[in-house]
């Protein structure tokens, strides 16, 4: 299977839709999952953000220097597009808590609980705990202070735990 670098090189030469789709098929599912989580499960908005991210990334593919993985670089476009799609500030005061989800299978519970968080908490948890960003990287992509990222993560995790069935995590981790 061709590496990302090989596909990028091939696309720079042939500009063909076939080569582009090889890159798209490899990275779009991860970008879309990230967009869905950042947009709070609003699939239509997530799809718009993904489309916007690709159309922004496409003319810049030749500028990719490999300082991070291609996926991380592409996900940066997703984060920016999602951020712009929020009408108000991303980091707003936490709103009303949603009802506690019923104790079904953990993944569903956790996913639902995550989507029910306020946008600010969710963004930091998704980027830090799921995507593996550092606080420094989060601060840069979201345009906030590192300290804000840390405090949002701590409060966000606490809010997430309050929404989860206490047994859910223990069952899986035992």
């Amino acid at each position, binding site marked *: 299977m061709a590496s990302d670098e090989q596909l990028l090189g091939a696309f720079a030469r042939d500009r063909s839709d076939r080569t*582009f789709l090889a890159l798209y098929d490899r990275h*779009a599912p991860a970008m879309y*999952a990230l967009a*869905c989580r950042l947009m709070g499960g609003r699939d239509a908005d997530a799809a718009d953000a993904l489309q916007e991210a690709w159309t922004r990334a496409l003319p810049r593919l030749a500028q990719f220097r490999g300082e991070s993985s291609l996926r991380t670089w592409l996900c940066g476009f997703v984060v920016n597009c999602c951020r712009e799609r929020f009408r108000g500030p991303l980091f707003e005061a936490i709103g009303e808590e949603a009802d506690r989800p019923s104790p079904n299978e953990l993944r569903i519970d956790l996913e639902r609980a995550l989507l029910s968080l306020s946008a600010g908490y969710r963004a930091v948890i998704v980027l830090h705990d*799921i995507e593996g960003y550092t606080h420094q990287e989060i601060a840069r992509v979201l345009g906030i202070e590192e300290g804000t990222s840390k405090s949002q993560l701590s409060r966000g*995790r606490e809010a*997430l735990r309050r929404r989860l069935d206490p047994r859910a995590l223990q069952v899986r*981790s035992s």
Partner: protein
Amino acid sequence: MSEPDKRDEELVEALRRLPREETPPDHLRSYMRSYVRSNDRANVRLNARVLVAASLVLAAFAVGRVTAPRPSAIPADGQKFAFLLYGGPTGGGGDRAAEYGAWALELRRAGRQVSGERLAEEAWTAGLATGDPLPLRGFFIIRAKDSSEAVELARRHPHARDGTVVVRRIDTP
């Protein structure tokens, strides 16, 4: 390890097990394929234009005249028009949506303001019935310098092949 740290660890471990991928809607793939194709065509056209312009300049220079091509006039403050898309094939998903998107994209890349939406099949009526002969499938809002230019753009819209595009000037100042 303190209790809060342990609880965090369990939570993070569970979060890391969540699926990292989700299949995006098919129409996005079709759209991006059309986007890349139209991008490529636009580059080819641009290169051809540059070549032609360079030849003209050289030719003009040879006979002692330098002719500079005039920039195309994109209306910055023209009028806004609505393109109402009636009839045509049902569904409108996949390649069709991508084709319409590519049409709008090409105009946007030329510096023209364009936006549009596809309408769902369901329709509800309040007040008097309109008696529309054909279902309204979608619309575009576009800026053009006058109605002649707007109609010309509408003729080139892919929906005009097998549907009806009604052009209406937007009257809001």
